[in-house]
């Protein structure tokens, strides 16, 4: 049976319209994966000597175990944003003589093979080996490594439970951040010292292998919970028939201000507001605005001026990147209709452009309080906003004309926690790297002000040639019209 499932997965991958693009993306992903593997390997090998040097009076093994609590917290948050439960279209399988348990076990089993679960091994194994080389007891280190693997798997399944519990809510990412944040705070202010408790627990496993049963039991429990959640979703009426939503209508007369673009803007606003997936990109704006707080309060970054441009582009452009890269796939469900309707392509694209520009302006205004950390930051954000409006919006619209992957807004398929995956962030990279590179060069060879000026000039050039660029992009879309219609007609 598993062989059949694997076969289906392979066919789904190779036969989809976006196959070519997926392969290119997969290659980029592979580079990232290799990078992380290298980092973890270095970490694993260097850990022992490093700890020995910095804290010579302490046992490196004990010190390392003290970090595990933070690793678990960080890993949980990261996975929440980047790791999604493998998607499988189960509807056709439901009526076939296949036990539901089998489908669920397959999906859960497949998730255990995720890259996220292998990554820690690259640090844990070399570290374990160096420990053994340095005369630690072989069997206790072996059990310690086993415990680490079990913890990784526990995090893996715990993440899916959290995701499925929060998937229905709108600010899905808030609970995880609040919980992780408060656990961290409780620990940090030593109200409850989780790090020590956990560290002692793991040391206990190393000393007495019998305790390994504890993580095994926890793993069994989280797996069982996942199993139950998914098993419940495997019925037609619970997952395939979505809840009927009550409509909140508003006529949005203010969009009339934008003239003939108005009907499309209304449509886009409804699209964003009424569908879970685009709505999450709206919610990410909150996260985006606060992003600067990771950097600016830290005096280390005060002199790294190229960073201001990076944060600026990111903060003012987070909606643009998130929403923009799925143009026109957001409309893929009814693309055929749009193409046979009496519409001007240019208006359609203009609406998306207006929407993204508005988001940049709003985000810039919201980011003005960062001036508290220095006027240079405000200036950098302003330049970044102009650049986003004048260059990045076009780049992302142009990129959209190569878009061949359908988005199913109705998302009736089970297991479909559509949201932000790692792939989505990678597409955003050129939008970030290019301006930062330009700025960093100008900043390095000339001055901060010149760097700002270059970004603003590039942005202004884009704004001045708006009509020309839009016509060019429109023609690109027209040229790939048939291909897009064909691709959006396919299910995967």
């Amino acid at each position, binding site marked *: 049976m598993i062989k059949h499932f694997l076969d289906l997965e392979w066919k789904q991958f190779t036969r989809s319209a976006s196959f070519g693009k997926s392969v290119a993306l997969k290659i980029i992903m592979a580079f990232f994966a290799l990078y992380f593997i290298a980092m973890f390997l270095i970490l694993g090998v260097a850990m022992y000597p490093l700890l020995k040097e910095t804290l010579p009076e302490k046992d490196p093994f004990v010190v390392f175990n003290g970090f595990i609590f933070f690793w678990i917290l960080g890993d949980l948050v990261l996975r929440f944003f980047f790791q999604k439960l493998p998607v499988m279209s189960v509807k056709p399988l439901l009526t076939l003589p296949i036990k539901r348990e089998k489908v669920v076990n397959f999906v859960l089993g497949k998730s255990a093979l995720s890259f996220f679960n292998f990554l820690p091994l690259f640090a844990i194994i070399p570290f374990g080996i160096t420990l053994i080389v340095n005369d630690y007891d072989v069997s206790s280190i072996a059990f310690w490594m086993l415990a680490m693997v079990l913890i990784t798997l526990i995090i893996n399944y715990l993440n899916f439970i959290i995701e499925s519990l929060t998937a229905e809510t709108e600010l899905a990412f808030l609970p995880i951040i609040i919980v992780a944040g408060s656990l961290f705070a409780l620990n940090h202010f030593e109200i409850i010292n989780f790090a020590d408790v956990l560290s002692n627990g793991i040391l206990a496993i190393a000393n007495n292998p019998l305790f390994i049963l504890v993580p095994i039991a926890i793993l069994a429990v989280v797996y069982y919970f996942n199993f139950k959640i998914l098993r419940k979703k495997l019925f037609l009426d619970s997952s395939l028939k*979505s809840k*009927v*939503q*009550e*409509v909140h*209508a508003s006529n949005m007369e203010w969009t009339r201000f934008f003239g003939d673009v*108005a*009907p499309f803007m*209304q*449509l886009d606003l*409804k*699209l964003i507001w*009424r*569908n879970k997936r685009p709505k999450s990109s709206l919610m990410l704006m909150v996260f985006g605005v606060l992003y600067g707080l990771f950097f600016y309060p830290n005096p280390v970054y005060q002199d790294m001026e190229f960073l201001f441009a990076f944060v600026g582009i990111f903060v003012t452009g987070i909606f643009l990147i998130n929403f923009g890269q799925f143009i026109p796939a957001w409309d893929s*469900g*009814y*693309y*055929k*209709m749009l*193409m*046979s*309707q*009496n*519409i001007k392509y240019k208006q359609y694209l203009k609406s998306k452009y207006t929407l993204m520009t508005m988001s940049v302006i709003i985000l810039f205004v919201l980011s003005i309080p960062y001036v508290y950390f220095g006027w240079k930051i405000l200036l950098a954000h302003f330049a970044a906003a102009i650049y986003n409006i004048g260059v990045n919006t076009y780049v992302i619209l142009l990129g959209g004309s190569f878009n061949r992957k359908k988005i199913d*807004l*109705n998302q009736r398929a089970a297991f479909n926690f559509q949201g932000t995956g790692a792939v989505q962030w990678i597409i955003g990279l050129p939008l970030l790297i290019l301006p930062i590179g330009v700025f960093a060069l100008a900043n390095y060879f000339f001055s901060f002000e010149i760097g700002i000026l270059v970004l603003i000039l590039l942005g202004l050039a884009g704004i001045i040639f708006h009509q020309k660029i839009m016509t060019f992009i429109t023609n690109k879309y027209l040229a790939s019209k*048939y291909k897009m*219609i*064909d691709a959006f*007609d396919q299910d995967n």
Partner: protein
Amino acid sequence: MITTTNLTKKYNSNLVLNIENLDIPKGQSFGLVGNNGAGKTTYFSLLLDLIEPTTGHIKNNNILVHESEAWKPFTSSFIDESFLIGYLTPEEYFYFIGELRGQNKADVDALVSKFEDFFHGEILGQKKYLRDLSKGNQKKAGIVAALIGNPEVIILDEPFANLDPTTQIKLKQIIKELAQEQGVTVLISSHDLMHITDVCERIVLLEKGEIIKDIVTSEATLKELESYFAGTQAV
């Protein structure tokens, strides 16, 4: 109104449609029948410029459909559910289509109110999104949306499928009225030979992409088609 000349469509080397010549005059109700894979939907898709012709062309009111977009203002269609926007309510969808076709809300309201009977109280004022309606109700909304904005050409693919018997009968009346009283050119395809002979003045039978029969509908047409599809008559 619609002239098709030397039209072919090939997928790889597989010829799926080959129409040398087909003229549909203004105000005709035109029916397309044929088994699965006969090329009905392919023809409609070509007519709407959703796919590219391999050779030949279609002229809609003397406009080449795959070169100009000037046919769009007077042509409307409903091919399948992918023509609907799932996250809109039926009213919003009608207004949106109306706006694209240069109609204000009052115009759309006036038109839609004529179809209250057809909707059977299950479409308007339900506070439901289109995606939450049943397949049949979605189809009703789609068909009515295709009537917005006084189109001169209306294309409906399989309009009778998924509809309940009451609605099928009402739909037949609507189509007849459009062609006879308002001079609209209506193109429909169907597997239901009864309905299509009832509604259409002219029926073209496709098989493997070729026109096999081109009949002006009469009393004998239904029998003729039935015996053809039963395979009892030599072509």
